[in-house]
Each structure stands twice: as structure tokens, then as C-alpha cells.
């Protein structure tokens, strides 16, 4: 339970700086420190239990199907890291209070910092693989916020992005690795997984797991060749650097390697991959550090180098090496944090970090100089300081491995060279900054920092000394506990003392110090040599690579998506063709066994006519009015076909829709260009399209024929049987429409209504280009109203309305119904618009068509909802027969009400569409016509 609070308190603490934002900087810092401090107290109270080897856990089910639970544990390793995170974190909070200037947003900084701290604590305390990953990603995200804190600076933005990209990519690999581990282990609980080392190591997945896992950890811990992001993360404020690059962020990768040491290490693959990478990083980092003129740059590469060292130790695979690794994690965190803070003080008080300008600061800030030099000496591995101890252990361990066989001696040699380089750059840090003459062109006159800004450095440097001098007392138990957690077995004997006698590691240390000093003294030659090579800026390369990637992808994308509808349509139809045709190849006979209807002359005429008019529609598609006429013939024949094949309702619907469509087409013709080229594409494209079209048509025709000639057993007998008895109508099609499947019809009229609204929207604020002459250049006739047309249309109106009523009323029993009747009424009214014009109609028939649509819909819905009050489902219909003397028997049905809704909606929608288009043009025409 305590472990939960260690995580929860900082998590809640994120709010503290935000709440106290207005209370002043000191208050904000204090408030921020409360939660981590409390967590630290809780952590420290666990010390005896941890040192006794107990593990505190907390578990809460969260997402069982994912294997993700809220699961925390506090063992030695977690304790060590939590201690570093909270302890150094508190020092950084104090330090940042003085480091940040007035114009920096303190709450934002502290909130991000605590967010990061929480994430880091989550990583080390997680006892669930996926939860661990969750916090791992949160460290990437929160570090992004910290690095980009000065977001107005380009280098901060780019550095942050690069860090996020690299660690984010690694994070994804890690997710894959963790999922695989969980899959192989059968559990995602870390402590259970840790007990399954052999299962994992002998699994087929092991190599891929290891590769993915190492990708995750190496990127996070800035191992070669993924180290390039780290120096650019130095664009962050120095408190951030001192936190991220000493105790936390970059240590997360190392932590993870240590954490999974029991299950993934102890194979040759592990040894080769981890130790060699570590060695390479150690050397590359140390060597590069030597040439950095920027203080923080030097420290950054030194960090890389030390991370390489820890990785190397973990890679060696021996238990003592692991102990050394853990020890060095502690030591590095302590001295590197203090060094960054010192560098920050120097920067803060002198205005630069350039070592070429910084000289002789000893005279200006002696205390800071002393502190920094002690820490740097620890970094160099000078005896009596903590760095010395872990380095000696490392040298000792490099001598013990033999996996490389006869070439195994390379490893200690290279390690010594690394040590020498470390001495060299540490010397440079000390000598170049604090001695080496007088400062050059400093923006400010340097002086000691505010008192409390130095306190964190002092604390850390004292720790360096104490650990260096009294190692066993200071960290013996801690190291034991942490190493035990890493190894998951009893820790081997190790001795933490300053003096082990004259031995090879001591000789190696001596050699390193000597060589280091020599290298530093002769640095001019080395600088000259290095000067030949162009310095590569990883940021530029990375940005360039990303831009290259974006450009390439943009090119590919534009090549694929050229914005052409024709291509999209072609691909869609081609795919449809392929998918539709693919099963047909396995069809044995197209023709089925259903008896066919004998054909006759008239049908042949009509089929021929249909085909000819279809072809004409295509042929004339650029002679637009002609195409429309041909299309009308097609529609006419389709209607006749419906009538012929026993579908009178369809014939009626098709006919009336046809006419309205033609009216719409005519409107379109008027506003669209009158001419278009006969060949709108190249001949190749046309032939290609013709080919696809022909194939498509033949496939659809084939399927149609195959279907027509096969018998069908369908659910329709039910409709025929129940239409009269259940729906009260003899026109089964209509009963299906208003009753059996009335819901479809409701949707259908809604579609019609919405279409009308959409069209109304389309016509809003449209500036229509009206041609003043037809396609032959003949100006339009000046006669607005033809007498004969107007009169006859007028006299036909009542007749047409009567017909529509006739068709509406008998629809339930005979061909007809609300939809057709509605269209007839609409057409009759449109005919008035055509004959008399919009103005005339508007004066005499001020109907709000959209209200008509709405009322139609509402009536249809009400007829359905009405059945609720009789305890029935929506659209349950009712009908009955009544008898009136003199009139006889007649039927009343609720379906008629529904049909009335359909009727009104259709009228409203059709007229809204057509009359509004007319209305738009009228005003235009009045202006254009007067000229």
C-alpha cells in the first residue's frame, strides 16, 4: 500500500504548482516540493524492510483482457531508483527556483517536472509489463514538454521533437517486446515473469524479443548509434538536463535492462549485443566529449559514455558486473547531477557555456569551482571519490569475461582507453573553465550564485565524497538490496573498499589517469586531427531525414492521389468488376433450370429500342439535349418493361420520377456549359474505359441472366398470404411499402426530404451564370408566358389533382399510393411554375414547402407512434371495414395516414427542390433580361 502512495503523491502533486501559480515563486517551489518530499519520507520509512529483502506490492484489477492491471511493487532496485528520482528531484526543484528567470512560467515548469517525476516513478515501481510501458511512454511525453520548455527557441523545439521521435520509436519496439514477453510467459505481471527466465530464453521468440527490447532500452539510454538525440536535449533548461541525464530519463533504459536481467541476460546474444553496444557507446561518447566546447555538450557526451559503461557492465553477464552496474548507476547519478547544476550556475552567472570564453573562473566563484572540480574528479574516477570505486569494479569485471575467446583481451583494453578519455575530458572541464588564464568576452561578470542555488550541488558533492570514502557504510546495504533485485538470486560477495591492494584494475586505473593526462596535455594535436572532419549536426541530419521522408511520401502520395475523380471511380469500378467476376469463373453453367418466358416481336422491338437509346445516350453525351432525349426513351421503355413484367406500381413510379428528373436535367442544361468536346479524354483512356465498361456490363448481365433462370424460394408467400388479412390491402406491393416494410418507406421519404434541404442549402448565395443565348447562339425568346400553355396548364390542374387523389386513395388496393400521387400533384404544380413563373405562383400559393415536408414526416411518424397507445410496436397498423347506409362497405386503415405523410413529404420535397431553383434564377433573370 505504501508503494501506491509513493506514486500517487507526486501524481497529485502535479496540481500543486498550478494551484499556487499566483502565490509567488518561492511559494510555488515549496508547494511543488511537498508531494515529492512526502513520498520520499514514505520511501525512506520502507528502508529497513527493503534492506531485509521484503517487497511491498499493491494490485488492483484494471483491464484484465489486456493483461493490464494497476500493479506496483517496491523491491531493492525500485527503491534505489525511487530514491534517486525523489532525492535528486527535490534538489532540482530547489535549484530551479533560482535558475528560472522571471519571464519563465514557473508553474508550467514545475508541473511538467512533477509529471515527469511521476512517470519515472511509475516506470520503476511498475509490476505489470504494460503498465510499465504506459509510464515509459509518459516519460517520453513529459520529457518532450521539459526539453521544449523554451518553445520559442528553434533548437529546443527540434531537440525535443528528436528526443520524442527516437525514444517514441524505441517505446513502440518496447511495447512489442513486452507484449511478446507477456505472451510467452503467459502473464503480464512482472514478478511472475521474472521467475520465468528459462521459458523466455528458450522460446522461439527470444531473439526477436531481445532485439525489440534492446531497441527500446538503447534508444532511451542513448546507446550508440541511437545516442544522437541526447546532446540536443541540452536545449532544455539546465535543471531539466541535470535531472533527465543523471538520475532519470536516460537511466530508464538502463533500469529496464537491469530489471529484465534475470530473464533476458545470460545468453551469448545478450552478451554480444549489450556489451559491444555499451563498449562502443562508452568510447564514442568519451571521445566526442573531448571536443565539445559547450559545457553542457561535454557533459552530455560524458553521460552517453557513462551510460555505455553501465550497459557494458550489464552486458558482461556476470553477477558482479551487474553489481558494478548498479553501483555506477548511483555514482553517475550523483556526480552528473551536481556537474550539470554547476554548469548551470556557471552559465547563469557568466552568461555563456562556451569553454573557449570561460577561463579562470576560480577567481570569481571559488566555492562553485571547488564543488565542480570534486564532482569532475569523481567523473574521472579519482580515488576517494565514488566514481573511482565503480570504475575499479568495472575494470575488474572486464578482465573476467571470455565470450570473445582469444580476442577477449580487447574488452579491458578498450575499457582502459575509455577510462583515459574520461580523465582527459574531466581534466578539460576543470582546467579550461576554472584556470587557463582570464575569461574572454563574457556577457556578465561572473560571481557566486545565490546561496540556496548552491545547496543542491553541495549536497551531491558531499555525497560523492562520503560514498567515495565510506562506501560500505554509505551504500553497502542499498547496493546489496538493489543488486539482489536485479539478479533475483543471492548477491555474490563483493567488497566495497577503497583499497584492494595492487592489482590489474588498479594498474588499469593508473594507466587511464596517466594516458588521460597525456591526452589532455597534447590535446592540440588531437583537436587538429578532429578538425579535419566536418562536424555533423545530428539535429540537422535528423530534421533533414524527416523532411526527406515527408517529401518522398508527399511525392508518392500525390502520385497515388492526384485528386482525380476519374481515377478514383476507375479503381473502384475495376475492383468491383474483379470481385464480382472472380466467383463466376467457377460457375459451370450460366443458364439455370427455371422455365423461361417465350419472347415475342414487340419485346424484341422494345429491347432493341432500349439498347439503341442507351447507346445514343452515350454517343450524344456531349450533345447534351439530345442525350437527354435518348435518356427519356430509355426511361420510358424501362417503365413499360415494369408494366409488362407485372409491376404496375413500379411503372407508375418510374414514369413520374422520370419526368421530374427530366425537368431537373433541363435546369442543369441551362446552367451548365452548352458545349463540351466530343472526346473528353485521350483515345487510350476512352478505349480503356470502354473495355472496363463492357466487361462490367457483361458480368452484370451474366449474373442477371443466371439469376433469372434459377428458381427462387423466398419469403414473399407470406406477404401474398397476409396482405389482405393482415394489412387490409390487396395491392401487396403497397401493403409492403406502408405496412410490412413501412420503416423502409419512412427512411425513404426522409431521404427525399433531406435531399430537398440539401438542395436548398446548395442554392444558398449561389451566383448562377446564366447564358443569354442557347447553344446555337440564338438569344432566348422574349415571351415569358405562352398563352396557350398557361391556359391549358391551368385547366388541367384540377384534373391532375383529381387523378392524384384517385391514385392516392386506391393505392392500398390497386396500383398507386402516396408516393406516386404526391409526385403527380407535385408535377401538376410544377407545370404551373413552368407555365406561369415563380412570381405568379408565389403570389397565389404561398406554401411553405419545408413545413410541408416536416408535416408529412410528422404525420407518418404519428401514424406509427399512435400504435404505442394501444400497446403495440411502432408502425403496427390497424384497419377495419365500416358500413354506412347508402354508401355501403368501406375500409379505413392507419396505413392510409402513413401514406398521407408520404404524399405530403413528396410534394414538399419535390417542390422545394424545383421551385427554389426557379426562385434563384428569377431574380437573376430580371436583372439580366432588362439589359
Amino acid at each position: 500500500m505504501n508503494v501506491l502512495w509513493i506514486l500517487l503523491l507526486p501524481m497529485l502533486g502535479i496540481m500543486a504548482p498550478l494551484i499556487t501559480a499566483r502565490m509567488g515563486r518561492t511559494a510555488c517551489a515549496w508547494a511543488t516540493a511537498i508531494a515529492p518530499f512526502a513520498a520520499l519520507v514514505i520511501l525512506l520509512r520502507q528502508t529497513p524492510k527493503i534492506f531485509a529483502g521484503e517487497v511491498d506490492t499493491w494490485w488492483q484489477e484494471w483491464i484484465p483482457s489486456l493483461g493490464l492491471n494497476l500493479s506496483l511493487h517496491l523491491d531493492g532496485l525500485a527503491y534505489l531508483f525511487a530514491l534517486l528520482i525523489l532525492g535528486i528531484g527535490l534538489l532540482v526543484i530547489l535549484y530551479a527556483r533560482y535558475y528560472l528567470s522571471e519571464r519563465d512560467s514557473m508553474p508550467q515548469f514545475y508541473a511538467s517536472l512533477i509529471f515527469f517525476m511521476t512517470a519515472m516513478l511509475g516506470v520503476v515501481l511498475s509490476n505489470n509489463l504494460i503498465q510499465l510501458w504506459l509510464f515509459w511512454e509518459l516519460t517520453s511525453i513529459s520529457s518532450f514538454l521539459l526539453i521544449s520548455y523554451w518553445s520559442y527557441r528553434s533548437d529546443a523545439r527540434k531537440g525535443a521533437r528528436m528526443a520524442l521521435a527516437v525514444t517514441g520509436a524505441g517505446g513502440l519496439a518496447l511495447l512489442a517486446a513486452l507484449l511478446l514477453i507477456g505472451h510467452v510467459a503467459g502473464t503480464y505481471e512482472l514478478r511472475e515473469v521474472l521467475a520465468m527466465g528459462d521459458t523466455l530464453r528458450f522460446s522461439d521468440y527470444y531473439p526477436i524479443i531481445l532485439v525489440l527490447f534492446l531497441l527500446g532500452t538503447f534508444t532511451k539510454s542513448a546507446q550508440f548509434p541511437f545516442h544522437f538525440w541526447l546532446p540536443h536535449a541540452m536545449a532544455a533548461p539546465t535543471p531539466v538536463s541535470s535531472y533527465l541525464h543523471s538520475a532519470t530519463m536516460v537511466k530508464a533504459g538502463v533500469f529496464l535492462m537491469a530489471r529484465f536481467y534475470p530473464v533476458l541476460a545470460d545468453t551469448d546474444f545478450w552478451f554480444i549485443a549489450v556489451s559491444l553496444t555499451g563498449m562502443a557507446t562508452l568510447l564514442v561518447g568519451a571521445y566526442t566529449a573531448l571536443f565539445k566546447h559547450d559545457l553542457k555538450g561535454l557533459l552530455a557526451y560524458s553521460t552517453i559514455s557513462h551510460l555505455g559503461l553501465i550497459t557494458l557492465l550489464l552486458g558482461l553477464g556476470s553477477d558482479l558486473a551487474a553489481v558494478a552496474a548498479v553501483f555506477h548507476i548511483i555514482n553517475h547519478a550523483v556526480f552528473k547531477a551536481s556537474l550539470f547544476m554547476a554548469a548551470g550556475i556557471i552559465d547563469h552567472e557568466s552568461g555563456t557555456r562556451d569553454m573557449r570564453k570561460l577561463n579562470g573562473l576560480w577567481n570569481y566563484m571559488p566555492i562553485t569551482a571547488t564543488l565542480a572540480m570534486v564532482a569532475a574528479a569523481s567523473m574521472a574516477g579519482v580515488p576517494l571519490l565514488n566514481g573511482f570505486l565503480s570504475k575499479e569494479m568495472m575494470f575488474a569485471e572486464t578482465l573476467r569475461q571470455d565470450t570473445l575467446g582469444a580476442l577477449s583481451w580487447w574488452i579491458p583494453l578498450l575499457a582502459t582507453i575509455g577510462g583515459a578519455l574520461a580523465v582527459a575530458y574531466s581534466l578539460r572541464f576543470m582546467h579550461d573553465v576554472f584556470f587557463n588564464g582570464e575569461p574572454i568576452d563574457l556577457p556578465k561578470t561572473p560571481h557566486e550564485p545565490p546561496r540556496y542555488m548552491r545547496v543542491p550541488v553541495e549536497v551531491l558533492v558531499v555525497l560523492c565524497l562520503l560514498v567515495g570514502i565510506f562506501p560500505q557504510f554509505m551504500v553497502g546495504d542499498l547496493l546489496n538490496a538493489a543488486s539482489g533485485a536485479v539478479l533475483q538470486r543471492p548477491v555474490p560477495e563483493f567488497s566495497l573498499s577503497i583499497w584492494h591492494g595492487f592489482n590489474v584494475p588498479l594498474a588499469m586505473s593508473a594507466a587511464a589517469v596517466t594516458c588521460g593526462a597525456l591526452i589532455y596535455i597534447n590535446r592540440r594535436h588531437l583537436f587538429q586531427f578532429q578538425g579535419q572532419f566536418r562536424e555533423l549536426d545530428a539535429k540537422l541530419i535528423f530534421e533533414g531525414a524527416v523532411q526527406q521522408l515527408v517529401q518522398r511520401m508527399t511525392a508518392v502520395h500525390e502520385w497515388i492521389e492526384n485528386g482525380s475523380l476519374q481515377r478514383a471511380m476507375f479503381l473502384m469500378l475495376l475492383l468491383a468488376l474483379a470481385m464480382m467476376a472472380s466467383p463466376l469463373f467457377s460457375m459451370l453453367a450460366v443458364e439455370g433450370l427455371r422455365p423461361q418466358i417465350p419472347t415475342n416481336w414487340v419485346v424484341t422491338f422494345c429491347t432493341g429500342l432500349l439498347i439503341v437509346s442507351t447507346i445514343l445516350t452515350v454517343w450524344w453525351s456531349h450533345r447534351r439535349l439530345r442525350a437527354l432525349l435518348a435518356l427519356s426513351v430509355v426511361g420510358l421503355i424501362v417503365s413499360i418493361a415494369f408494366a409488362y413484367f407485372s409491376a404496375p406500381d413500379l411503372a407508375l413510379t418510374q414514369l413520374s420520377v422520370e419526368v421530374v428528373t427530366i425537368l431537373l436535367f433541363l435546369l442543369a442544361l441551362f446552367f451548365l456549359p452548352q458545349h463540351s468536346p466530343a472526346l473528353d479524354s485521350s483515345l487510350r483512356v476512352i478505349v480503356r474505359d470502354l473495355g472496363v465498361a463492357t466487361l462490367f456490363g457483361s458480368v452484370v448481365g451474366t449474373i442477371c441472366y443466371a439469376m433469372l433462370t434459377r428458381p427462387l424460394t423466398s419469403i414473399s408467400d407470406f406477404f401474398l398470404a397476409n396482405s389482405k388479412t393482415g394489412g387490409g390491402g390487396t395491392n401487396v406491393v403497397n401493403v409492403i411499402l406502408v405496412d410490412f416494410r413501412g420503416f423502409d418507406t419512412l427512411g425513404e421519404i426522409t431521404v427525399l426530404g433531406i435531399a430537398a434541404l440539401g438542395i436548398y442549402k446548395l442554392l444558398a448565395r449561389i451566383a448562377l451564370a446564366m447564358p443569354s443565348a442557347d447553344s446555337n447562339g440564338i438569344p432566348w425568346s422574349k415571351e415569358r408566358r405562352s398563352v396557350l400553355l398557361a391556359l391549358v396548364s391551368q385547366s388541367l390542374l384540377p384534373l391532375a389533382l383529381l387523378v392524384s387523389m384517385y391514385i392516392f386513395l386506391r393505392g392500398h388496393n390497386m396500383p398507386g399510393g402516396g408516393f406516386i400521387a404526391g409526385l403527380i400533384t407535385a408535377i401538376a404544380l410544377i407545370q404551373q411554375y413552368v407555365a406561369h413563373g415563380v412570381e405568379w405562383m408565389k403570389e397565389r400559393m404561398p406554401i411553405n414547402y419545408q413545413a410541408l415536408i416536416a408535416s408529412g414526416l410528422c404525420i407518418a411518424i404519428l401514424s406509427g407512434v399512435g400504435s404505442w397507445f394501444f400497446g403495440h410496436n411502432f408502425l403496427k397498423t390497424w384497419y377495419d371495414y365500416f358500413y354506412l347506409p347508402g354508401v355501403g362497405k368501406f375500409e379505413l386503415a392507419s396505413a392510409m395516414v402513413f401514406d398521407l405523410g408520404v404524399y405530403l413529404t413528396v410534394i414538399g420535397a419535390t417542390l422545394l427542390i424545383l421551385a427554389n431553383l426557379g426562385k434563384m434564377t428569377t431574380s437573376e433573370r430580371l436583372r439580366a433580361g432588362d439589359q
Partner: protein
Amino acid sequence: MTHLPILPVLVPLVTGALMLIPPFNEVNNRQRALGTLASLIMLAVAALLVITVDRDGTLLYAVGEWQPPFGILLVVDRLSAILLLLTSVLVLAVQLYASGGDDAEGRFFQPLLMFQAMGIQGAFLTGDIFNLFVFFEVLLIASYGLVIHGGGKQKTAANLHYVILNLAGSALFLIGLGILYGTFGTLNMADMARVASSIEGGDLTLAKAGALLLVIVFGLKSAMLPLHFWLPKTYAASPAAVAALFAIMTKVGIYSLWRVHGAIFGEQAGGLANVALPWLWPLAWLTLLMGIIAVLASQTLRSLAANLVIISVGSLLLMVAMPSEQTTSAGLYYLLHSTLATALVFLLAGMIVAQRGKAEDRFVAARAVSQPLLLGSLFFVAALALIGMPPLSGFIGKALMMKAALQQGEAGWIWPPLLLASLAALLVLSRAGSTLFWRVRDGKPGTAQAHPLQLVGVGVLLLALVLMVVGAGWLTDYTAAAAQGLYQGIDTRVLPTGGAS
């Protein structure tokens, strides 16, 4: 309560109709309040349905009380219930956002929104394949109207492509339905699932052709490669609120694939079993790949978000292409997440465009937004969700899908694109965010402020995303049960024994 299943269709329909007649026919606070009320009712209904279905099992509602398969049957199982909930959350968010002023940029926004909701919810509800077509058309025609809201060349051009492609799609849908009715003789999906295994001979061939045609139709809706061309343009051109609502449009296609190709042409379908898979697999994979390419090529926030939709579609299609309870469950969770997250980004993009002057949402240095901290934080959160980074629900969905793929033994094919997609999103979104909010050209920021209602709309989505994380345990159990229910099919006791077919 017995009429609960039909309310998701009726409430928006009635509201939409009311918004055409006085006193609600003007764009004013009265109309907006009505819209909010309707959205809240829909949300309540959907929540109630989810609870009821989770407790009592599938709800069936025979419209007109005609016994299935003859009448139209509404089916509320766990799958449709949760999608209804998703829709209503989205509609509420969009309605609130648009009520902040965007709805006044043209006519009929609120009624069209309601009709669109009706179409989407109807498509999720119906258990009848032709009725599905009808609701597809309802949601499409409403979306045609919504895309052009506010007017402008870009919208018109995008809408033209969108409309024409979808009209062709509708034609293919009808041909497919024709073939299916011509071979199955029934339209009720549960009944079709029952009949499917008995189809053989020439009918089998025809039915396959029909089933495959429907893949095209649903693929077009869901923006499967190479049917995705309409999507980036349309989403990027649409007004923010509409684009946000559209986040669910592709999901309707995915849902239909599950319903039709998972349940009707699934494992039990005899000769028709899994007929779509050989096509779906490569196309889904390529869709994901295309999404990655497109995301990397994105130049504006809205097109980026649109291309992220393609990635999510690709991922989901891969889940569809490996039908199993795990993949479906994982896909369903991811579907909920990706819909909400994309919608969030589109809404944000709307506010950013409004504040950023002529540069709109292009990734170039421009004047600062007037509310950098607010929009920046929101963007940051939304970006995390989209990339699939914790703490928002994206990572859960991604991990679930990866796990499901691993269980199917397909991790080698599916993990790399899934992970690459996240990486691409990470690269581009971090670039996008730092450019939009940090690369500020000198000069005074604008004065445009986000309307409080817009923020409430965004808040609704954020809250939903957070709830998806907090309640992930319950939700994943639910999605697992939903997936199980999908493949079990509807209880055939409601179908007539023997029947006409």
C-alpha cells in the same frame, strides 16, 4: 421502455422535422436548445440500451409487429448498443460545438445533424439488410448536405467527388442486394445467416458475387484502399463540426462488414464462409500502408487528421480480416477510441483555424493563436490519443489489437504497420503541434476566442476518452461479450421454424 430500441431513430427524426417548422425553424437558441435536448435524450436512451443489453441480452424490436424475417427487425445487441452510445456522444459533442456559432453559417445545420444521427443510428440498429441500405442513404444524403455547410469552392469540389463516388457505391449496393435476395430469398440478416449454409451450386456462385460486391460498398464507406479517395478531401474540406461527426462515417462501413461479412458470411456459412477475407486482407494492409504514407505527406492539420482516419480504418479492417472474438473485441474498443479522438482533433482544428488567420491550419509559421495555452493543451492531449500514447485510450486499443493479432498468429504481418503508423503519427503530430503553436511569426495574435459551447463540445469528447481509460476494464469485457454475441448470431427462436424459405 419497450419502445426503447426505436427511439434512436425516432428522436432525431422528430427533432429534425420539428426544426423545419416554427418556432424552431430559425437558427437561434431555441433551435439549439431543442437540438441539445434531443442529443441528451439520445445519449440517455443509448446509455440505457447499453445497460439493458449488457444485463438482459439482445433486445429485438419488430417494427409494425411483423414477425421476422417478414417485417423489419431492429436488433440491439451489445455491438449495436455501444455504437449507438458512441454516436450519441459524438452527436452531443458536435451539436454543442456547432451551437457555438458554426451552425449559423448556412441553413439547416441542426436538422441535418439530426437526420444524420438518425441515419447512423438506424444503420447500427437494423437487422434487415435492405433497411441497412435505406439508412445508409439517409446518413449519406444528410452528410452531402452537411459537407457544404458554410459554402466555398473547396467544399463544393470535395462534395462533388464524395457524392458521385457514393452514388456509384449505392448502385453497387443495390446490385449486391439484388443478387443476395435473388439467391437467399430473404432480407433479415439473422435469417440470411441461417440460410447461408444451405446455398449451393450456381446460387452459391451468385451469392459470392453479391457478398463481394457488398465488400466494395462497405469498403467505400469505410475508406478501404483503393476506395478511400473521397475521404481526405471531404474530411479536410468539411466544417469542423461536420468532419468531427464524419469520424463515425467510416466506422459504419466497418460495422457493416462485421455484421454482414462477420455474421452472415462468417465461419458457419458453408460454401460462403469467409468469402471476403482473401480480398480484405491485402486491401486492409495496403490501406494501413497508404494511411502511413498519407499521414507523412500531410500539410494541414485537417488533412492529417483525415489521413489518421485512414490509418484507423486500415487497422480496423485488419481486425475485420482476421475474424475472431479477440480481434473483433479489440477492434471495437479501438473503433470507439479512434472515433472520439479523431472527432476531437477535427473540433480542435476548427478552433485553431478560426484563430490562426489566413494560415488556417497549414503547417507553416504564422500568427499565434489567441488562446495558445488552452488550444495547445487540448491539442497535446488529442495528439497523444491519436498516436496511441498513454494516458488516453489510444494505447489500450493499439495494445489490444496487437495482442489479438498475436493470438491469431499474424503478429509478423500486423505489428510492423501498426507500430509504424504510430511512429508516423508521432513524427507528424509532434511537428504539427510545434509548428502550429510554437513557430509563431511576430505580430499580434488574433482576438478570436473559442465559444464556451465549443469548449463544452470538446470537453464531452475528452471526458468520453478519459472514461474509456478509467472504465477500460468494464468496457473491454463488454466488447469481448459484444464480439462473442456477433459471432453467435441472434437467438433464432424469434425466427419462424420452417418459415417460408
